[in-house]
């Protein structure tokens, strides 16, 4: 019986203390860490249409259409299918796609979540902060040792052109 009473005591202590742990979203800030992976933001001026992100995406979320000259025409991303693994951002040699901290998003139909280039460029930055600063992916280690097809160099040369 003492054990039961002690359990009651534990809960009574919590009730009498009256501390709450609840964060009153949306009135209070939800406290998102800088590395959080939310909605993607795309930068047309940075993108070199190398298609690395499309290749690395595990489930074909990104759909890029280019013309014969490898100039980009469309950049589609289905947010309703994305798994927010951030491989596209890591693999991107020019930081053209970045996962922001923006998550307040929903849609009435599935089709509304299929974002095209313009939608992706319109994704808001989170409270004026630059997500790039929060990112520190170690791309040197990530991209590999094989000199010949080092994406870094390929990418940079393409970018320079």
């Amino acid at each position, binding site marked *: 019986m003492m054990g*039961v009473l002690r*359990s*009651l005591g*534990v*809960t*009574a202590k*919590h*009730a009498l203390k*009256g*501390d*709450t*742990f*609840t964060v*009153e979203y949306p009135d209070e800030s939800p406290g998102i860490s800088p590395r959080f992976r939310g909605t993607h933001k795309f930068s047309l001026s940075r993108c070199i249409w190398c298609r690395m992100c499309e290749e690395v995406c595990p489930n074909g979320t990104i759909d890029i259409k280019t013309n014969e000259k490898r100039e980009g025409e469309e950049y589609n991303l289905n947010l309703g299918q994305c798994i927010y693994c951030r491989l596209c951002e890591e693999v991107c040699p020019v930081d053209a796609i970045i996962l922001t901290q923006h998550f307040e998003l929903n849609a009435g139909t599935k089709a509304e979540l299929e974002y095209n280039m313009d939608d992706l460029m319109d994704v808001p930055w989170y409270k004026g902060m630059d997500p790039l600063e929060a990112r520190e992916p170690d791309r040197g280690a990530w991209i590999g040792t094989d000199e010949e097809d080092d994406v870094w160099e390929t990418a940079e040369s393409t970018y320079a052109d």
Partner: protein
Amino acid sequence: MVTFNDAVADLLGVDGFSPLVEFIVGIVGASIVVSVMLTIIGISAVWLKRKWNARLGDRIAVNRIGPAGLMVMPADALKLFSKEVVVPEDVDRIGYKLAPMLAAATVLAAFAFIPFGSGLQIADPETGLIFALAFASLSAVPVVMAGYSSKNKYSFLGFEREVAQAIAYEIPLVVSALAVVPLVAVFADTSAPLRMSNVVTAQQGPLLGVTGLPIPNWFIFAQPVAAVLFFVSILAEFSRNPFDLPEAGSELVAGYLTEYGGVNFVLLFLAEFAAIYFGGALFTALFLGGGSGPVLPAVVWFLGKTFVFYLVVQWFRATIPRVRIDQLLEFGWKYLLELTFLNLLLTAGILWVVL
């Protein structure tokens, strides 16, 4: 203490009413009691329960619907009443539809015998306590009806548990309540110790009739064992935690409530919470001195005590694990029954020796 009709007659300065007026005044009194109880039950079932549970679990609970979330009550009620009523095809229609009404009706009718104090008591027959306890046991019937007529195996298991539980805890409930009756006879000096108003009157003096003691003569002090036993039996009788087996959420989905939705669900839900309040009212009248207390009117004290009872029940719900059906029955038949009888005999013995 006086019944509502007498109080009204007193107020109007008449000696008594003709039967017709008596009936009308009775109806008015009953509506007052029912509406007071419904308001309280509504607040507690929908709002207080959430808030109190949240407090135990370091949360906030509903606070965005109206001031302090209070508007959630009309919202819940309106929403539930306007939901589509689904009657599953295979159910026993009469039982299925009658059970919720019966459930609400029996529990609300039982409040007629409760001496709220300040003249708010509808009926005060000489055998009031027995009537009240009879109504308490009646609450099992609609549960059985609901469970059986639903044609759902979870409901079926739920009502089977209710039957076993109600039978096992019926006798301890009555016997532990009876332990106060000899005391009533002594302290109220009456030949009708089962009358509810006498039960309350007997608890108005100082403890054990000894003047000078600052403790009131509530029977919880004179009969602490009976109070504990009665409390346990009432939890089991109305299937509250840790004895909430007929509805056991994690085992039986929603027990006997599984097939009920919309209005029918509201009535059963209401009956469930009304039962807690009825249990609290009985406990208050029998062991907590009814409406006795300083300054405030008796009815406020009475309702306040039932409120506390309700909070304690919810506190247990959050802290104490549910027992198993065989443990429940074992405890009921093997310990509780013997203990209550022993307590009754001891009370009688002591009184016989003392007097």
